[in-house]
């Protein structure tokens, strides 16, 4: 019986461009250069052309892209976090408290909140590093909600009112370019990191942690380092937004910061970071655009989410990548 089957073949240009030295035309150079240049150009130009409302959307898109990338990174090490809000919230509060109460200026405050936030989150999660799978996820889901309640009950850090009057950035361009540059840096740094030997070891922990232990590597120490990296990124996001809004409060621990990054990474394609980036750039503006329609917003938003996941379960990035690198044709095969 004859049957039709789809055949995928690498484009010749793809095969040649795997080795930089064999590029032999301007077109082939473009083929290699366009994918990494596209996000750079997009992000550098957008702040110049967007109206001020959409600049704020760009900022939160970048923030969610960062949260999604750091979530994806942690998944790559075998830790499925449902609590990016923890990292985000801790960073927000450190920035708020140190700027408003201790008077630390923004440019010192941001790096401090980034590193200190990463450390605090790592320490908070150290006791559960041994938990696997869903148990780890549960703890990360609950921790930010717990911190939120503690702040409410104890009335510390402004309690339910939050802290207002925190210094904001000098002008919107500074604001936009800080987050744009950090996002681009994180995108390329994460993509690079996972291909290094260090990154391979982290990934191996997810595949088979016993095998990694058996060669003398302390997987809990490695996992703590991965948490620290993720924690730093999340805390930076929190600290940054605190300075954008001049306010920090309990909403910093809200579930949105845990769930939205996750859906961005899933929709965009996991394990690639570019996927998280694309996912955030689709979902966040989409959610903004739907704001106009009121009550049905969440319904429509969820509908789009399901459509994406059903239509492209591999993720948008993997789909684009395949189309870019391979061509497909129908062939007849004997069955």
């Amino acid at each position, binding site marked *: 019986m004859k049957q039709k089957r789809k055949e995928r073949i690498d484009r010749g240009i793809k095969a040649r461009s795997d080795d930089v030295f064999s590029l032999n035309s301007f077109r082939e150079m473009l083929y290699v250069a366009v994918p990494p240049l596209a996000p750079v150009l997009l992000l550098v130009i957008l702040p110049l052309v967007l109206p001020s409302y959409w600049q704020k959307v760009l900022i939160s898109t970048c923030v969610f892209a960062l949260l999604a990338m750091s979530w994806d990174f942690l998944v790559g090490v075998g830790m499925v976090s449902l609590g990016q809000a923890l990292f985000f919230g801790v960073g927000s509060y450190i920035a708020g408290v140190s700027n408003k109460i201790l008077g630390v200026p923004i440019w010192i405050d941001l790096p401090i909140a980034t590193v200190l936030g990463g450390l605090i989150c790592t320490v908070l999660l150290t006791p559960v590093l041994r938990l696997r799978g869903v148990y780890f996820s549960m703890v990360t889901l609950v921790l930010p909600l717990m911190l939120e309640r503690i702040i409410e009950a104890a009335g510390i850090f402004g309690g339910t009112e939050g802290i207002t009057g925190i210094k904001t950035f000098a002008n919107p361009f500074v604001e936009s370019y800080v987050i744009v540059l950090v996002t681009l840096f994180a995108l390329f740094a994460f993509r690079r990191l996972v291909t290094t*030997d*260090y990154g*391979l*070891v982290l*990934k*191996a922990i997810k*595949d*088979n942690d*016993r*095998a*990694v*232990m*058996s*060669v*003398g*590597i*302390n*997987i809990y120490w490695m996992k703590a380092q991965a948490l620290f990296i993720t924690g730093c990124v999340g805390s930076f996001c929190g600290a940054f937004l605190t300075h954008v809004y001049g306010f920090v409060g309990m909403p910093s621990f809200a579930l949105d910061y845990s769930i939205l990054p996750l859906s961005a990474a899933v929709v965009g394609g996991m394990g690639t970071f570019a996927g998280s980036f694309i996912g955030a750039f689709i979902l966040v503006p989409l959610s903004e655009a739907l704001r106009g329609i009121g009550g049905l917003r969440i319904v429509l938003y969820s509908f789009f989410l399901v459509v994406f996941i059903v239509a492209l379960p591999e993720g948008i990035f993997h789909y684009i990548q395949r189309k870019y690198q391979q061509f497909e044709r129908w062939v007849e095969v004997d069955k």
Partner: protein
Amino acid sequence: MNDQNKRQNDADPILRVENISKSFGGVKAVVGVNFDLHEGQLLGVIGPNGSGKTTLVNLITGFLKPDQGKIVYKGKDINGWAPYRIARVGIARTFQMIRPFAELPSFKNLIIPLYSPRVKALSGGQYGDLDAVAKDYLEEVGFERESAVTYKAAGSLPHGYLKRLELAKCLALRSDLIILDELFSGLSIAELASIVPIIEKLVSEGKTVIMIEHRLRELFRIADRVVVLNYGSVIADGIPCEVMERSEVRKAYLGSE
């Protein structure tokens, strides 16, 4: 044999297992096991299915904590140490159920052992170009240099190559004590013929090896000594040809009363 006896007498054992036991709920997997192992020896551990061989490996390598007893390696009591610490002092193991890092090419699988702090310390605190070193080790266990298998995803390797990859992992760690859990199982005669010399070479280099095996014929040809487990206890301990003569051992293997 004389030579071996001499070695046993004048040195402290590299590994001493003292009266260790482990049970899982009601199942007594290992019961009061004792043995000494001297440097440069090749010890075979045999026994019927479920007799506690893998559990013994897990106890020595720290993947399980013994309920009682003591494990002394090079004079250090390593009881209760985490697996990574035990690996760092020089005990390497293979797993009976081999699960490679499936998506990585074969040679990249060796990056993980080569990244071990033990290897780093042995090479003077530097990692260097691990890819090249990894390919050297693969060649040593019979991956033809620059052949397709070296670059193939480990998940799609044939069984024989997976076993070799697992062995290469132990070589890469440059450990002094190497524990191989059923390395020979599922290998063809031809594949065995190429792996046995690698193990013989290890022993000749002064490494100590423990082999858990069901392939008795091949094991007995290279083992200096054999320990037989049955229901978690040692029922015989001696040189290979003697051990198989014992009636308890025959009974355990043949299952007859």
